[in-house]
């Protein structure tokens, strides 16, 4: 007997201004099925799930829930149907407790004490350990996700939407999550699993629908389809494998960090304790770790945004600069690409030319206090051409570029200043596959040219693919860097989870 789909979408269309985020999307999710929604950034996955969850209304199309046409006016309506969603960016309130956060996600009013008992019961049933009385800002990223999931499970959902759930988890936490999802599916709950990580989808999902440019471009059984074939469907062309290139043997130490301590600046921060490593010219050193373990503080301490306690804590190309500010360190040959593109790396309202000036005041673009616009424009145009930045020109405001193009411009700008050391935090975060490849290429070329490159990233795949050596940041402490060839994913995963000396 043919079963009715739990959720059926027909011709869902949604426009934002001139861009069509979703264009006639059809989708069917069966009861008890783990269904993958696959696509690059900007393919329309997020918009589609927001429509299903009632956050965004479609311009056209039909949503059918267990065979009946429905209109999902807001998330309350979605929850009433039995749809639960775990957001990519957690929708938790930092200063509230776990139980309070969960209470806010439930429709019915019940006392916090009674709810806490239900939380503990449900949590133990699915192997999700959390303390309902703790404040969310004390929790690790993995624990926060458990809170999100629990909030959904307490409503006994029939469809659980998971938006890129594993990007912030250690490999061990991912396994725990998958076990929980399989158990949920076995109990009859459908799961809509959004990701661009092909290996995960192959390991977990029963069926996959691929989106590209707001349209469904294919469906497949991920267990019977190769990752390469799915990737081609996703990006619309064959993936170009990066060519392995000869790298000169690592040279002199260009950045030496010795016993860097840095207290947390805000209540949600992490204190750095005795961070030490040495970065050599011509190598790429990766710093892995789950977000919130001191990455922000480390970047601030290295770039000079915050000063170290002693000058010797940070030695850049032989110069002790722990007590020097960011501009002085830039003069010494340090370039940095922070995590936030707009607001930290670049100013959204300024043009690309003006943004190029921001880190270029020391390299000849300013003479006697006046900006020399001619060479500056040449430089900006050079970056745009050299890194194939898609922009309306050098005078386009930074805010008008897509994330991937902005990131290419920023990395190109920093590379253009011929640094001795380049520090990049999450260089491909939120960037589409094509741009990510270009950025990786640029970083490899830079290292091949004898620059020391430091990558701070949560994406373990990126670190393993790009770096020569890897260290793990956990709870503000850094493990001893090891050659990538000598480490295992499991070993790094344990370090990321705080199990010391396991690698």
């Amino acid at each position, binding site marked *: 007997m043919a079963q009715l789909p739990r959720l059926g979408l027909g011709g869902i269309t949604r426009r934002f201004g001139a861009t069509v985020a979703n264009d006639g999307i059809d989708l069917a999710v069966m009861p008890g099925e783990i269904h993958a929604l696959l696509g690059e950034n900007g393919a329309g996955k997020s918009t589609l799930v*927001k429509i299903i969850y*009632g*956050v*965004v*209304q479609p311009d056209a199309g039909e949503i059918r829930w267990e065979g009946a046409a429905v209109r999902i006016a*807001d*998330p*309350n309506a*979605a*929850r009433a149907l039995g749809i639960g969603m775990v*957001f990519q960016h957690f*929708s*938790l*309130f*930092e*200063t*509230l407790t776990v139980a*309070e956060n969960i*209470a*806010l*996600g439930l429709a019915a*009013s019940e006392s916090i004490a009674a709810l806490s008992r239900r939380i503990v019961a449900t949590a133990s049933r699915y192997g999700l350990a959390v303390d309902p009385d703790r404040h969310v*800002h004390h929790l690790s990223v993995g624990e926060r996700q458990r809170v999100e999931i629990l909030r959904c499970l307490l409503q006994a959902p029939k469809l659980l939407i998971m938006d890129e759930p594993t990007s912030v988890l250690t490999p061990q936490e991912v396994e725990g999550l998958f076990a929980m999802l399989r158990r949920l599916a076995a109990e009859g709950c459908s799961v809509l699993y959004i990701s661009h990580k092909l290996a995960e989808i192959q390991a977990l999902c029963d069926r996959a629908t691929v989106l590209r440019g707001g349209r469904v471009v294919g469906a497949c059984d991920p267990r019977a389809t190769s990752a390469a074939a799915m990737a081609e469907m996703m990006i619309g062309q064959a993936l170009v494998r990066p060519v392995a290139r000869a790298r000169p043997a690592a040279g002199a130490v260009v950045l030496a960090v010795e016993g860097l301590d840095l207290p947390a600046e*805000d*209540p949600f921060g992490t204190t750095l304790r005795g961070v030490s490593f040495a970065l050599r010219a011509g190598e790429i050193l990766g710093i892995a770790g789950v977000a919130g373990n001191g990455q922000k503080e480390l970047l601030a301490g290295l770039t000079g945004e915050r000063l170290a306690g002693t000058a010797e804590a940070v030695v850049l190309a032989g110069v002790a600069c722990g007590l020097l500010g960011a501009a002085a360190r830039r003069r010494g040959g340090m370039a940095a690409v922070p995590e936030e593109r707009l607001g930290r790396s670049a100013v959204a309202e300024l043009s690309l030319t003006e943004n190029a000036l921001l880190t270029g005041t020391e390299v000849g673009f300013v003479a006697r206090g006046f900006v020399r616009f001619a060479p500056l424009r040449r430089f900006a145009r050079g970056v745009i051409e050299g890194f194939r930045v898609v922009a309306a020109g050098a005078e386009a405001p930074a805010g008008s570029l897509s994330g991937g193009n902005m990131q290419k411009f920023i990395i190109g700008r920093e590379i253009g200043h011929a640094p001795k050391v380049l520090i990049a935090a999450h260089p491909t975060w939120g960037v589409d596959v094509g741009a990510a490849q270009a950025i990786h290429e640029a970083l490899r070329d830079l290292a091949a040219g004898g620059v020391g490159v430091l990558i701070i990233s949560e994406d373990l795949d990126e670190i393993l693919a790009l770096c020569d050596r890897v260290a793990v940041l956990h709870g503000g402490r850094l493990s001893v860097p090891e050659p990538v060839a000598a480490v295992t994913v499991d070993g790094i995963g344990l370090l990321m989870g705080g199990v010391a000396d396991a690698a």
Partner: protein
Amino acid sequence: MDEVMIVALLVATLRAAAPLILAGLGELVCERAGVLNLGVEGMMLVGAMVGFAATLTSGSVWLGLLAAMLAGAAMAGVFAVLTIGLAANQVASGLALTIFGVGFSALFGAPYQSHPIPGLATVVFPHLSAAAPLVQQLLLIDPLVWLALAAPFLAGRFLDRTRAGLILRAVGESAEVAHALGYKVMRIRALATVFGGAMAGLGGAYLSLAYTPMWTENMVSGRGWIALALVVFSTWKPLLLALGAVLFGFVTIAGFQAEAWGIPLAPNLLATLPYLATILVLVLISRDTLRLKLNAPAALGKPFHPAG
């Protein structure tokens, strides 16, 4: 100093604190929902003027208080339309609201200038002046002072113990998250803002109907700003806010006493003393920036517009 004197001091302190507590709590609730309304001073002034005018024309102090609350709420409503509905800058709009309130109350309050009426305590206890001195002092603790004493506990309980309070705090913590969970962020913020306006109006009316029962131009004289400061320095905690207000009241009254006892202090310095003392103590209390960051509503002053 005899006991009547001590009681008189305490009562006067509470009476001076009451308008600050009322207006401050309103603003506190509003800020916990993420809306920063710098128009407290203006709303208090309009509340004081409208409350006085309504009392004089209707003959009922209760109608006067109600009118004052409605006037404050109406001004906050305008502010809500601007900042929540149209996402205008909250700081600029709030300052404009205060400037408007100063001018509006002076213009339309001119006919009522220096026109004494019986104070709230006399209205409630008509035989006040005939009572024994000690009883007289105790009766001066009028219903609004009692309300001001109870309100911090009520507000604290509402914010920390009820579901509505939890939702209000959540909206002030992250409008985006609250919206994603299906809460009507704009409506909740507008309601909190209007509540803040009503409380500011009530606090202003206390000044013109009970504290010094008459209307004089600009009679709020900066108490709205102190109420605003109290909210921040109390780290958004109702009980601490009440404590700060009582301190302000005490120094105000102590200053009058010092004058009465002939302690030689320049009157201008004396007038600044309560402001100075309150801010000094509150700065000391809240010098722990970590705590301030933890308690501050994270979305305070940030406009929110739901997409889609």
